[in-house]
């Protein structure tokens, strides 16, 4: 229940006769982040969700193990089981040189991550301002949007051969394809974000004496932020998608290349290791973006919490 300050003014007290409060009130002490997290975890543990979830995961793992290594079901013959995967992944002398103790494993991981970083950053740095401008100035959108919409339906991976022609050398072409995918998603979502801003905020800003640059920085940018971050999450996932494909088709290092190579060289457990690593990295990068989003958009966090 909110403290009902309204009732005071009803009793005929003038507005100024309120209880004494310091002129510049201190910010109330917000509970610390880890305190919130801890209480949320405690609360979650009382529901059935985490236990059922663990049950589901464990039973899937069990089924996987049974089908591949114990029963050796028909279609599962060539698929490596969890024991085979774990014995490679966690061994000090891995047969195929891919384990958490081997340097080459991390080299591949870093190769992929570095490409993602480059492509994603470039796509964001170019895509967000482009989207903001397209949403802000209709004339600009008239010139750029048709071109944009014409090129967008082409699946990113169809660009691979052309990219190899355009940017000789594997590195640049793979980064280019990844960049393109992320770029389209980011720009589109940013544009949608700007267009989703309620007209009333523009009017209010105008009433308060805003010039165009104020509208841009105080209404358009913050207003589009939620959509921008949704777009960034999607584009991060899409970047991984494109990167893996690019690396498989035309790469020299990296997890995509590792997968393809492992397949060609019959190193099945490595396949699975690389897949799991990819899954983890994909989840981690999306989680990072979500964290940044929460910090920048405090007003949404408090709205949901409140």
């Amino acid at each position: 229940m909110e403290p009902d300050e309204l009732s005071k003014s009803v009793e005929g007290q003038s507005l100024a006769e309120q209880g004494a409060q310091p002129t510049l009130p201190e910010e109330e002490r917000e509970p610390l982040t880890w305190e919130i997290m801890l209480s949320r975890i405690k609360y979650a543990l009382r529901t059935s969700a985490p236990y059922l979830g663990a049950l589901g995961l464990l039973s899937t793992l069990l089924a996987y193990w049974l089908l591949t290594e114990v029963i050796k079901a028909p279609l599962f013959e060539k698929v490596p089981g969890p024991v085979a995967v774990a014995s490679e992944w966690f061994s000090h002398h891995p047969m195929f040189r891919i384990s958490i103790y081997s340097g080459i494993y991390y080299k591949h991981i870093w190769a992929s991550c570095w490409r993602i970083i480059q492509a994603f950053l470039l796509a964001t740095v170019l895509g967000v301002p482009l989207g903001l401008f397209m949403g802000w100035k209709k004339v600009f959108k008239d010139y750029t949007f048709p071109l944009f919409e014409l090129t967008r339906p082409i699946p990113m991976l169809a660009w691979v051969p052309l990219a190899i022609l355009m940017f000789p050398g594997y590195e640049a072409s793979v980064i280019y394809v990844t960049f393109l995918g992320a770029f389209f998603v980011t720009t589109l979502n940013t544009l949608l974000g700007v267009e989703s801003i309620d007209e009333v905020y523009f009017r209010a800003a105008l009433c308060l004496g805003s010039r165009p640059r104020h509208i841009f920085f105080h209404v358009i940018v913050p207003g589009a932020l939620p959509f921008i971050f949704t777009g960034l999450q999607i584009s991060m996932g899409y970047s991984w998608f494109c990167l893996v494909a690019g690396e498989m088709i035309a790469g020299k290092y990296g997890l995509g290349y590792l997968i393809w190579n492992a397949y060609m060289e019959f190193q099945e457990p490595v396949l699975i290791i690389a897949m799991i690593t990819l899954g983890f990295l994909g989840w981690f990068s999306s989680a990072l973006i979500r964290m940044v989003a929460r910090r920048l958009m405090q007003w949404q966090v408090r709205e949901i919490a409140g």
Partner: protein
Amino acid sequence: MILSQILGGNGGALVEKAANFSEATAGKISIRDVSIIYDPEGARIVAVDGCSLEIPAGEFCVIVGPSGCGKTTLLNAIAGFHGVSSGEIYMDDQLLCSPEMTTAPGADRIVVFQNGALFPWKTVLDNVTFGPVIQGRMTSKEAREAGHELLLQMGLSGISHRYPSEISGGMRRRVEIARAMMNDPKVLLLDEPFRAMDALTKTVIQKYLLDVYDASHKTVFFITHNLEEAIFLGTRVIVVTSRPARVKKVININIPRPRDFRVLSSEYYRNLKEEALEAVHEEAQKAFEAGERERA
């Protein structure tokens, strides 16, 4: 009480600096034979038809009419959000709108919107200080101090660091009024601002608005569909017809100020209500039959 007197001392000096200190004669509005026709997809909609109205400076003028009748359109024209098809609007004898030109929206006539337009991504304090800071009339530091003072005096201390989504609807509306008042506008335009509130909060907030009016004597152009609210708040109540909007009846509200909720049971009030009720009801019936869809 004028704002500087409310705040007193240092705060007063700051607000004087904030306000291009307006005399009580500023804010006269003349609407002369204004018609507004707009044309979405070829369906010619006459929103306002030959409306004429003189609002002296410092008057609390309330427009009452059924939903969708065009009163918001008229307010938007005064605010500068769109133009007029014929006729003219003057503010303080200077041309504001005509078919050829529309003055851009500005801080001399600030709108308080129906569903609220506090920037959700700014704290209460940032919202309130937005106007003076971007207009360059105050530095950020001065604005924050003045803002704190204003919020304090308006009974809104303690929430300055909160976001609009964290405070109640009533508080949001008060913050929006505070945000407008920080710029010392000549005219306050209110577009059914209390529509979305429950009846109890509404009575409290209406009283609050009256306090602000008594203190500052701004010209107020208030739109509502609620006759009781109109009589309680206004110095004059203008009944307009269902679309297209025309002035149907003008009623002078002789209830003395300051008013409080006891007014609602007085005889003055009952008589005035009777006077207006038939006109309003007639238009409401017409609007209902025309199947007016609410303009959000």
